[in-house]
């Protein structure tokens, strides 16, 4: 017995020694990695500063009509072998818009003076510059503090001699070398460059008329929900930025006159505007009918979706509210609505964000699917790239237009991500509408309708996991093959280098030192199961922006990464529509997160 105990003590001692060594090694490795990350971060920041200086340099060169000072951003040893000179070639027009491709022509070697001359020629073609952006698109290779190979995104908003508005968008590959003599700071210089691709689009800026809403009777300004204003002393949120996220809008024809009316969902007072058409004055006019329609007092709202719930020929209204009871208004057919939220079973309270109608059981009555976010009062998204701690989405079945029943559990559609957007479409043409969900801080969910009242989640199999801050999504057949494709909106940071592997592993190390180390471990395992060994790339995925998925027609999708639809900023609503009636679906993508004072962007 004694011997056994002694033996056990020895084993324990050995184990603790091994453990101690392991912990010490781990801490040492972590500290080294921390240091590396800090250098990666400061290198990235210094490159950002370099781009910002270059940006100002280009603007100065334009103002002074002289590009010679710009050469100081190039190394004396600058040499691009076989680079060719960059020219603009006219491509086919898109509606009213003239399109050009920027191409490298010839195989000339380029030296510093050649670059200067090329930039001078380019600037001579502009009569005004409205805006220039130089951003890191991707850090391809980094030898910390010494050299960086990166892709640079260049956007110039300008005007030419004929007054045309144009935008040049180019991607360059720049090889930077740190020529700081002291070895302590950064003095980046371009040693060689290469054109990745570029376009110019030009027009007169009047293909769309920016109508002053007030002049058309739309005297509306969106207001945030004061109950979510953290600057107010009695509001305490765990997830503080939520108040900036709201503002849905819908087109409907509530009075069946064939003219689209507008419903704005608002934090203080939602509005319904009746479209009076153009007949009266020849100008489009609207009237605020919120009060006379019986829709006053709709605060804390984020979306209003219209559909004829009882098949009486008039569009009823379902209002999605955040942490306030949802509302259902029956359309009486005489321009007024009646609140029937409770009797229809549609007065649920949850952190609701969006909704869509679909007839999932094809019984001739439309059902409702609601996208439910997390509760900002009590929770923050955990993990920030795979948050599953939101409220469950709801599927509500319409029983003959008389009452709705919650069928979330039996249908298997209770996504607990921080859902911002939902949409319904029959993606596999089997006759039953399926559901797709965009989750903030997470992934997409694709619920295939089995036709028997149940759904099966298929996002991984279908290839539409699309990890990111999912903000919106829409279905449309953009290539006319008879299958509905998907376009999703996500966040695309101007600092997307920030999300590279190094930062993700840094994030992990930070978490490992907090109490979340244990609680999050299971979540990491789930991410690994979904993504496999490439899971550390999740940070890069998150910053990549919007995604266009082509429907292959066999229940799977393929992301068209080269379709030039992904860099749409901090994405919100997206919509397919044929803007020029040329039969092909185009895309509109809203964006923008928080605009406080200009020039203070984080």
């Amino acid at each position, binding site marked *: 017995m004694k011997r056994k105990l002694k033996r056990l003590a020895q084993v324990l001692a050995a184990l603790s020694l091994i453990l101690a060594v392991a912990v010490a090694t781990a801490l040492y490795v972590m500290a080294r990695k921390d240091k590396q990350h800090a250098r990666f971060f400061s290198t990235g920041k210094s490159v950002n500063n370099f781009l910002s200086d270059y940006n100002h340099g280009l603007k100065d060169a334009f103002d002074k009509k002289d590009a010679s000072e710009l050469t100081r951003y190039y190394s004396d040893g600058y040499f691009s072998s076989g680079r060719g000179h960059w020219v603009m070639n006219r491509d086919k027009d*898109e*509606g009213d818009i*003239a*399109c050009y491709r920027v191409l490298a022509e010839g195989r000339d070697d380029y030296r510093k003076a050649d670059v200067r001359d090329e930039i001078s020629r380019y600037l001579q073609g502009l009569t005004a510059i409205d805006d220039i952006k130089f951003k890191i698109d991707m850090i391809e290779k980094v030898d910390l503090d010494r050299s960086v190979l990166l892709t640079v995104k260049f956007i110039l908003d300008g005007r030419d001699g004929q007054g045309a*508005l144009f*935008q040049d968008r180019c991607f360059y590959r720049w090889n930077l070398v740190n020529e700081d003599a002291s070895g302590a700071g950064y003095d980046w210089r371009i040693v060689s460059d290469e054109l990745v691709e570029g376009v110019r689009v030009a*027009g*007169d*800026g009047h293909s*769309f008329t920016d109508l002053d*809403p007030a002049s058309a009777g739309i005297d509306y300004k*969106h207001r*945030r929900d004061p109950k979510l204003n953290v600057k107010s002393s009695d509001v305490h949120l765990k*997830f503080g*930025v939520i108040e*900036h996220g709201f*503002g*849905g809008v819908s*087109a409907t024809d509530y009075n069946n*006159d*064939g*003219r689209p009316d507008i419903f704005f969902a608002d934090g203080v007072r939602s509005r319904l505007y009746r*479209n009076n*058409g*153009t007949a009266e004055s*020849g100008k489009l006019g609207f009237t605020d009918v919120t009060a006379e329609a019986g829709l006053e007092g709709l605060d804390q709202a984020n*979306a209003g*979706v219209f559909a004829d719930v009882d*098949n009486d020929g008039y569009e009823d209204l379902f209002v999605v509210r955040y942490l306030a009871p949802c509302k259902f208004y029956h359309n009486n057919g005489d321009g007024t609505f009646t609140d029937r939220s409770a009797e229809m079973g549609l007065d649920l309270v949850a952190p609701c964000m*969006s909704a869509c*109608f*679909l007839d999932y059981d*094809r019984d001739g009555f439309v059902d409702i699917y609601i996208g439910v976010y997390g509760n900002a009062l009590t929770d*923050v998204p955990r993990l*920030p790239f795979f948050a599953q701690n939101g409220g469950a989405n709801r599927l509500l079945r319409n029983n003959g237009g008389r009452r709705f029943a919650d069928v979330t559990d039996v249908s298997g559609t209770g996504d607990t991500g921080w859902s*911002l957007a939902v949409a*319904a479409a*029959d993606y596999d043409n089997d006759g039953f*509408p399926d559901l797709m969900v965009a989750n903030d801080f997470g992934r997409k969910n694709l619920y295939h309708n089995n036709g028997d009242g149940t759904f099966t989640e298929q996002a991984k199999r279908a290839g539409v996991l699309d990890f990111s801050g999912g903000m*919106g999504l*829409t*279905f449309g*057949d953009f290539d*006319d093959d008879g299958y509905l494709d998907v376009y999703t*909106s996500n*966040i695309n940071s101007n600092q997307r280098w920030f999300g590279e592997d190094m930062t993700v592993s840094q994030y992990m190390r930070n978490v490992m030192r907090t109490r979340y180390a244990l609680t999050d471990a299971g979540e990491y395992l789930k991410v690994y199961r979904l993504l496999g060994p490439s899971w550390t790339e999740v940070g890069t995925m998150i910053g990549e922006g919007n995604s266009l998925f082509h429907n292959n027609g066999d229940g799977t999708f393929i992301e068209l990464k080269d*379709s*030039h639809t992904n860099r749409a900023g901090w994405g*919100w*609503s997206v919509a397919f529509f044929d803007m*020029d*009636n*040329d*039969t092909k679906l*185009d*895309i509109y*993508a809203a964006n*923008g997160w*928080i605009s406080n004072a200009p020039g203070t*962007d984080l």
Partner: protein
Amino acid sequence: MDQYKRGLFFSDEFVGENSWNGYERKCLFANAGGGQFLDVARPAGADSIKDGRGVAIADYNGDGKLDLVINNNNSTPTVYLNNLRRAGKCIEMKLVGTRSNRDAIGARVRLSAGGKTMTRQVEAGSGYASEAMLPIHFGLGGSAKIDSAEIIWPSGLTQRIEGSRLDPFVDRMARIEEGSQQITEARAARMAGRVAASMRQAHRGRT
């Protein structure tokens, strides 16, 4: 930076009084074919810098071209009336279900014109907290003639309509009831300006 390190980069302390992806220009991706798109928002004049949220697409002024209304967080909305000069013809269809749900939500229409077939679905709620008008909209390019349309109703009924029955509704909105071959005008005041002008013209011709 501390907030970021703690994984709380989305806290309001992190934002403070700063902008964060602020003043972003909206994107209008023109479909160039072959899976390629081109952002033409600036030269088209549709690149508002407000913090856009919902987008509601509809032909608000009845000129046959789709317009945009954007709700902007903490700001006035953006109303973009489509004024593209080089635009094709169109047809809009308001589908009315009888066995299917009345709005025909979930119906899919395949329309053939000018040698190609396009597919659209009736949907109610998509994008972000947004809803476009329910009637579906087909651009027809230069073609003023429709070959045929096939409607797959949510009830399962597949309804074929000859192009000649739809041609009178080019640049208008047709009301199509499930299973019925009777097609009527769904928007009396549609193209009001143009129709009124051509009627006056016709009147003068007679007198």
